[in-house]
């Protein structure tokens, strides 16, 4: 199926978000996709990953929109990113625009990094969102806002250095840290309350798929997050969460063509899975097999 693309500006208050809407040339499925990035990447994502995803989806009949946040890329405005202040307004504006331009009534949010936080919060707020697929994103925030405690700053400094990382991996150091942790009343970092709140709001009506690399440092963080969120959910809601761990991959900085291929395949696959499961539950009159 041929793909059409439309460069455009999505209105969001006084700002205009530069975006590209991709759509199949013929009939399309009733499922649209909003592609979100971390703050430092523009809408195309590293090495055009989101361009490839958008075109692959359009070839299979799914429209999508990839968008620059305000203050980023070709958009207007100024940006300041804060992990606890997601850019969900940007994601919601893009989602509404996609619906208005294509007529789709169901939406999937697809995101990496900081975009993952935006995707989950936007999915919780948008009544037509049915799924979110999130590649590694920041999950932990400081318990108390302000400078990190000394121990966290030291760990952060060490993690940024090869020798430091080796040191932190030494069994003796791990044992000392575990013992110290056991004596501590409260950890310095906690799972983002906003993220937990958004997950709890969205999971009763939509699915969230986390796709992490086995080697990703943040895998432990998302597991920690799910350990906190899942026990508070009903059985049916728990089934709406899925954590896919890709063996031998990092999937964090996307610094190899091979890892990018994995991200593209998984992203497209997650949308196809969502569509199939929606169709299995209640086939849409205009739907065609993907």
């Amino acid at each position, binding site marked *: 199926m041929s793909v059409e693309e439309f460069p455009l500006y999505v209105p969001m208050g006084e700002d205009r978000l530069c975006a590209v809407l991709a759509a199949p040339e013929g009939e399309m499925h009733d499922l649209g996709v909003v592609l979100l990035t971390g703050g430092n990447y523009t809408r195309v994502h590293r090495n055009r990953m989101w361009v490839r995803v958008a075109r692959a989806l359009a070839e299979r009949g799914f429209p999508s929109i990839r968008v620059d946040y305000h203050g980023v890329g070709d958009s207007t405005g100024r940006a300041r990113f804060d992990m606890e202040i997601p850019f969900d307004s940007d994601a919601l504006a893009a989602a509404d625009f996609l619906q208005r331009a294509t007529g789709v009534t169901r939406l999937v949010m697809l995101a990496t990094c900081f975009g993952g936080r935006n995707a989950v919060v936007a999915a919780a707020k948008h009544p037509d969102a049915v799924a979110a697929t999130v590649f590694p994103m920041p999950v932990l925030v*400081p318990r108390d806002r302000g400078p990190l405690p000394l121990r966290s700053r030291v760990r952060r400094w060490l993690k940024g250095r090869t020798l430091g990382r080796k040191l932190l991996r030494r069994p003796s150091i791990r044992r000392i840290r575990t013992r110290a942790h056991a004596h501590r009343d409260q950890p310095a970092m906690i799972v983002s309350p906003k993220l937990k709140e958004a997950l709890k709001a969205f999971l009763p009506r939509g699915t969230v798929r986390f796709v992490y690399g086995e080697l990703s440092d943040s895998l432990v963080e998302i597991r920690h997050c799910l350990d906190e969120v899942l026990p508070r959910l009903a059985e049916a809601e728990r089934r709406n969460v899925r954590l896919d761990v890709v063996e031998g991959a990092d999937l964090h900085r996307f610094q190899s063509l091979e890892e990018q291929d994995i991200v593209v395949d998984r992203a497209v696959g997650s949308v196809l899975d969502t569509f199939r499961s929606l169709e299995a539950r209640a086939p849409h009159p205009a739907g065609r097999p993907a």
Partner: protein
Amino acid sequence: MRLDRGFLAEHASHTNEGILERALHLEVGGERCFSVLYLPDEPREPGFAVCHSYGLELLTIRRTERAVARALAGAGHPVISFHGRGYGDSTGDLAAQGLDRHVEDLRAAADRLRAEAGVQRLGLFGARFGGLVAGTAAREGGVDRLVLVNPATSGPAYFGQLLREMRLVQMSLQSGGPRRSMTDLLDQLDREGVLDVLGYAVHRGLYRDLEGVDLTADLGAFAGPALLLHVAKRPGPPKDLLALAERIGQAGGECEVAFVREPPGAVFGSAAFVSTNDPMARVDVSEPMVEEIASRTVAWMGA
């Protein structure tokens, strides 16, 4: 489900501080090149085309290119920025994108600018790899002005730097990463036709095309005024920038070399949003640098 084409067309442009910004596709060699036109109400000569950089810098330098484009348009100069074939939002195969095609895409963008804005004369803006493409196009003539920011002046030096950065990153990886010499890497490029440089493909065709490009030795027909901006932590332009300025001077062109200081935490061509004192926030540390590049460009145009 049907596309509302009228609605899409309505949103292909907007007016930002009195400047019409229009996003569009250029047709070049059967492919679509994503472009943005910045059209002031009363356009004045010359118009400018923005040449983008390579790899991750296509994304990170966009912040600067956008600021310069808006500032030039604010001063009355129409501007077009675009993604070449195989880059960004454009279609096409990067593997087929030799140096000639980079220049061809630039010419197509310049023609569109002339047609839309009614300007005749052309200036080029380029940073890093974009500077190399702008300089290469200027060699062939038809370019009145050049504004280059930390330009790569030679192909081998530019790609050599990319490969060195890749080796540094790989050495810092937890696993240790593969440690290969430059010769090994170039042999692989020769053998396999492509090299994965931190998630960006460097293709043999472009590498070979750029092997012979050295703007400090040959700027061909270009003899127009030029502004060379050296963005760094400390003043003192690198030798190749001074040699380029000298080359332009020898051809009879006026060349100004100016220094723009990188603010703390900012590195030109790297990520703009970085964490500072607050670990949860990412602020745009590049903003003062970007604004200075834009304002110096406009001031130089007005001088």
